[in-house]
């Protein structure tokens, strides 16, 4: 009796559902599989595509403007991304920079140097790569210039308010200092520090370009700027060519690239075009970096006593005085 009831109940169920329970379970399984596959497929697709499908890329990174904190940070970040991107096989640095403060110029050098240690880096001098600008491209495997490109101008200048140097001792009497060298600007020390920075700069140029340069270390230290044609002759640059030639050269140097099987990607950051060697008054947010105007960083009106620059140019104040003798 009980059995009959069960059989009857089952028949009733079968008459309501056209498929068996087992088949229903399979439907659930397939549905779950489709959902899981939908989630996993893009991941697998990405992994697969980066591994095989993409052409290797020559990344063109552009620096137009001074080698100041903001510009160099932007370029350094891009270089870092290029290093960490497996599809980037080589880098072309497209540069038009007259240099800037020594500190960010050194940063740029280190970032390019690190990149050049990992992949081919070819520099293309669009307008000028002088002083701090040249500092940045000197680790490149090859340097391409146009006849009108300006390179060289190896050297450092220090900008210190003359009155501050001369009157440092008198002025220091108006406040209490903890030691004899505190808040003092000494001409001898300035020169020594300038010389230290100069040696690091010239040493860097000689390290990377020593074999190519036909100039002596002393001639490099003279700090002269050269136009493209002359630079190719004296070893400050390697070849005359355009950006395409630089890209081809970079691709040719990469082991990852076979023939012309490569893509070219351009990175043009919105860089700050400040040619003045005045303190860059920047207030912007770039990624996780925030720049503030320096002038009102503190409450009091302390002035940074000295600034070291690797620039191709003369201080704006000096030219304003009508004195254009840059050699002095």
């Amino acid at each position, binding site marked *: 009796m009980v059995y009959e009831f069960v059989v009857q109940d089952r028949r009733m169920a079968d008459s309501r559902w056209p498929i068996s329970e087992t088949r229903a379970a399979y439907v*659930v*399984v397939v549905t779950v599989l489709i959902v899981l596959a939908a989630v996993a497929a893009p991941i697998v697709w990405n992994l697969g595509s980066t591994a095989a499908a993409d052409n290797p890329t020559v990344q063109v990174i552009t620096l137009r403007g001074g080698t100041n904190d903001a510009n160099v940070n932007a370029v350094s970040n891009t270089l870092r991304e290029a290093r*960490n991107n497996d599809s980037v096989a080589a880098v072309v640095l497209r540069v038009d920079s007259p240099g800037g403060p020594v500190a960010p110029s050194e940063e740029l050098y280190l970032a390019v140097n690190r990149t050049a240690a990992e992949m081919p880096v070819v520099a293309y001098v669009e307008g000028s790569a002088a002083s701090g600008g040249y500092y940045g491209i000197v680790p490149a495997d090859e340097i391409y210039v146009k006849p009108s490109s300006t390179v060289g101008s190896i050297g450092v200048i220090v900008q210190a308010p003359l009155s501050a140097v001369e009157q440092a001792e008198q002025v220091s009497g108006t406040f209490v200092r903890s030691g004899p060298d505190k808040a003092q600007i000494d001409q*001898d020390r300035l020169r020594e520090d300038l010389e230290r*920075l100069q040696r690091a700069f010239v040493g860097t140029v000689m390290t990377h370009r020593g074999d190519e340069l036909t100039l002596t270390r*002393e001639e490099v230290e003279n700090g002269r700027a050269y136009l493209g044609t002359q630079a190719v002759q004296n070893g400050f640059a390697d070849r005359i060519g355009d950006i395409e030639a630089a890209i081809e050269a970079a691709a040719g140097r990469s082991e990852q690239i076979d023939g012309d099987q490569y893509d070219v990607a351009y990175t043009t950051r919105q860089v700050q075009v400040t040619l003045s060697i005045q303190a860059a008054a920047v207030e912007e947010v770039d990624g996780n970096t925030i720049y503030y105007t320096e002038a009102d960083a503190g409450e009091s009106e302390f002035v940074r006593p000295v600034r070291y620059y690797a620039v191709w140019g003369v201080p704006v104040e000096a030219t304003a005085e*009508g004195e254009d003798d840059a050699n002095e």
Partner: protein
Amino acid sequence: MSDRSLVQPIAVLIVALTVVLAGTFAVSALVGSAPTGSPDGANIEGQSPAQYHPETAGIDADPEDGELSVEPTQDDSRIVIDIRRSSETTRADLEPVTESLFEAGHSVTVLDGEDDEAFGDALSGSAGLLIVQPASAYPDGERDAIQGYIDAGGHAIIAGEPTQTQVGGGLFASVSQVSFGATELAQGYGVTVGSEMLYNVNDGSNDNNFKSIYATPTRGGVLTEGVDKVTFDRSGYVATSGDDVTVHYTAVEGTKTIDTRRSDTHPVVVRNDSVVFVADGSFLSQPELYDADNEVFTSNLLSFLARGDSGNFGGGAGTGQGTDEETT
């Protein structure tokens, strides 16, 4: 619903999931083993470049030790220091010099254009005359007085610098050209200051700046005794005429003229009997006074002055600019 009808689909789901996950893992592992470049860590060669290390970028600043030591004379001497025509040197700058003369028992008369006695009267009875960087000409009367003074046995030193740009301090920096003014006076003794400044960019051959040149003795004698090398901060070279002039110091090898880049043997300290000519005025005061062997050189010069004896020179001519027509 039977146990079997549930277990089978669940088993299939588990197997299928395992296959999918294992497949994904296998693909990711395969992709992971593809070349990805070096990790972007700190352990990359070149990020502590050799040229940045202290042993290569460091400099050897000349120790500023030693002290001025002027020889005493039997009858204490008086030295006249004429800075009336110098815009660079002040009475305060010469304090170390006057102090050392005082310690040796000598006395000093500084003519700085403020309530000075007549030039001839100041010279009368003194042993030596030191003229520092005269930027304008000596009038006839004063030149005659100096000639009479030398003829009588007085000693004279002229420290003159070539034409150069001078930057004035203060609220607004002013730039001007300063030239050696006492050309006629110096030429009377067969010497004049050369038309260009000297420089040396070789790191081992300058005092941490291309303009701070080194000079070494070329012969023995009172002017070079105990001196290995001196450094001049604003040095020119001495142009000589006639056989009476002897060269005592020349700029070290590799030193060049700044405009024409002539690399020659450049005399910087010469002597014509009782008159010594030095092509730099910076070594007499800080911060150059104790650099290299400048203090020994300066001591020699001051001792040379103290040994003069103007004897019966009675002043007479040379009562100052007011009475004589100035010549250039």
